[in-house]
């Protein structure tokens, strides 16, 4: 949809200035962190000196992407209740992170998820496979965000082309990661999370104000929303009724599985737990993140349904489409300045998420692949690991700029995000669970599990309704099948190989994961 809606030049100017202020602030932080930080601990894990609430905000910032903010608001605004079901899964997923992953990871690992996977197995094959799945998740997710960024900027600021927007976002994210490392990336996330929460709270309050802060009245207004169907007929629907867009319940179950198990396998979320001093702080940061993420997704009720009832689906469709529901609502409620603010928040959101993805990709490549697979865990020269990570960040940034431009603005990228969650759930999570809790687990099992999970997710997406007119696989998200396949692969690989598990190492991992003995320390000032 390339509707150019009437936009006062002043608003786009204001929006641009607000965005530039954000960029300037984040560049100052980057400059400051670059001056301060030296060494691998500082570059990859911010010296492990981030506090609980700071990391909670950063995790939330990494997680609440433009797809959540603009996408879910838009889905609820256009089709009601079904969009809200996404919101639920995004939060509940953090219980998996809290219960199973965060503390053992912080206790037993160093910079990446693979540190824990490879702990008691043969490190080279496991790290190579884990690095492959990390890079796949990060790069797919990033391309989705970059294409989204290009489309949005073009809609928000007329005059800026898709290509220019993609290049601008790409350059900024590379600057944050290459020069500022994890410390700068963390602060970019924190600022963005605060801005996004501020914008959402304000938007929600303004919506409720229209109903005199009477929740009953607010929900009553949703029972009869009129919109025009594709064939030009006018229909009135109750937007609180489930099933207005999702017709196949299995789709919902499969998606739920990807969210619930995939979040705990998302590399850019997991590396955040290495930035805090100890497992206790990692736990506290998950709780902070859950509070912030929960409040945010509950508020999608107000700005999503609010846009449906105050603007109506037809108005949104005619003024920029689904993704513009939240910004359009802001304009309706708070005028041009508020519209500009929400647009700037959306930019900040995209920028922060791509920076987080870039650093997770480059950390995995440098730490897992370069140092541990190619050079058997030893740097050839001091500081080499960090240098490789910086170069990788540069390459990853350039690569995603090129891919995003080649794919162009019209490609459907929603499936890339679904794919990232599905790969994380099917490849990373089974192997992580087994390596923490199953004594018999071995290298063959880990490599098979990672590769089967990765391959089955990709293949099933390629034959799904998103890709084929006559799909071979009926579900939009592969998790329902690919997650059991990932577990099966890890189990079969283990029992079919004759390799003996290293029991002493398993004992060590158990003690480390449960007590934090010998865990990586925060660096001194």
């Amino acid at each position, binding site marked *: 949809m390339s509707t150019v809606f009437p936009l006062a030049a002043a608003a786009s100017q204001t929006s641009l200035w607000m965005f530039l202020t954000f960029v300037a602030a984040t560049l100052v932080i980057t400059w400051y962190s670059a001056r301060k930080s030296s060494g691998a601990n500082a570059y990859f894990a911010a010296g492990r000196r981030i506090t609980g609430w700071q990391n909670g905000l950063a995790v939330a910032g990494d997680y609440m992407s433009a797809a959540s903010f603009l996408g879910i608001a838009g889905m609820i605004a256009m089709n009601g209740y079904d969009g809200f079901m996404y919101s639920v899964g995004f939060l509940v997923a953090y219980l998996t992170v809290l*219960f199973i992953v965060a503390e053992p990871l912080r206790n037993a690992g160093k910079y990446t998820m693979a540190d824990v996977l490879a702990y008691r197995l043969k490190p080279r094959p496991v790290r190579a496979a884990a690095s492959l799945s990390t890079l796949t998740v990060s790069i797919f997710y990033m391309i989705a965000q970059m294409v989204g960024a290009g489309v949005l900027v073009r809609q928000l600021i007329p005059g800026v082309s898709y290509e220019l927007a993609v290049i601008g976002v790409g350059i900024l994210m590379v600057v944050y990661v290459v020069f500022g490392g994890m410390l700068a990336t963390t602060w970019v996330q924190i600022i963005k999370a605060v801005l996004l929460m501020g914008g959402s709270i304000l938007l929600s309050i303004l919506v409720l104000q229209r109903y005199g802060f009477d929740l009953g009245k607010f929900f009553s207004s949703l029972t009869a929303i009129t919109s025009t169907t594709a064939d030009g007929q006018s229909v009135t629907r109750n937007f609180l009724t*489930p099933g207005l867009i999702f017709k196949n319940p299995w789709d919902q179950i499969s998606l739920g599985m990807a969210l619930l198990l995939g979040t705990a396998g998302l590399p850019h979320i997991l590396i955040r737990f290495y930035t805090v001093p100890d497992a206790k702080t990692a736990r506290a940061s998950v709780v902070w993140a859950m509070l912030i993420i929960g409040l945010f997704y509950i508020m999608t009720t107000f700005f999503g349904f609010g846009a449906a009832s105050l603007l109506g689906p037809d108005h949104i469709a005619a003024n920029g489409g689904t993704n513009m529901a939240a910004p359009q609502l802001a304009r309706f409620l708070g005028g041009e300045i508020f519209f500009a603010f929400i647009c700037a928040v959306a930019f900040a959101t995209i920028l922060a998420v791509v920076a987080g993805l870039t650093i997770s990709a480059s950390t995995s490549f440098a730490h897992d692949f370069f140092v541990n697979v190619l050079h058997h865990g030893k740097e050839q020269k001091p500081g080499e690991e960090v240098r490789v990570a910086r170069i990788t960040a540069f390459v990853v940034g350039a690569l995603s700029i090129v891919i995003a431009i080649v794919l162009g603005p019209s490609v459907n990228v929603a499936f890339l995000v679904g794919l990232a969650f599905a790969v994380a759930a099917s490849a990373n999570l089974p192997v992580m669970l087994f390596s923490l809790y199953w004594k018999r687990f071995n290298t063959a099992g880990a490599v098979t599990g990672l590769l089967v999970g990765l391959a089955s997710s990709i293949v099933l997406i390629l034959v799904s309704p998103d890709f084929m007119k006559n799909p071979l696989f009926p579900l939009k998200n592969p998790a329902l099948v690919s997650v059991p396949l990932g577990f099966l692969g890890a189990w079969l690989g283990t029992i079919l190989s004759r390799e003996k598990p290293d029991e002493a190492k398993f*004992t060590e991992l158990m003690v480390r994961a449960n007590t934090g*003995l010998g865990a990586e320390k925060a660096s001194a000032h």
Partner: protein
Amino acid sequence: MLSPHGDQDLTPAVGSQTDIAPLGCRGAKPGHERTADEDIDPVQWDRIAKDTDFKALVRRKMRLIVPATIFFIVYYFLLPIGVGWFPGLMEKKVWGDVNLAYAYALSQFFMAWILAAIYVAAAAGWDKSEHALLRKFGVEHK
């Protein structure tokens, strides 16, 4: 290979804080230079793992984590199952115009927060046992 600096540690000269063995260092490090990790006797892992207090700690963790995980997975999937196969039930109004589908979806947020709070409260107890355990083995981390 002969180094012009002899046994001197070159790391400070390079100016980079790395986490690999210091350059040019031969033999064991003096006690004050060892990291917490290196301070631990390898035999220790096995002794801790066999300790009854450690086993009790792990069992206590599992007693909460396993049922809580099963609970939240069931609670969560009841939402898509209910919405998908029992739409009549889920469309029943429970408060004004709010139907069961929305109310149940909203309840998931509070379910997640409450479970997180229970976990954190229990984990405070685990932290105490963990400290006692490490003190017993003389390997306390601050």
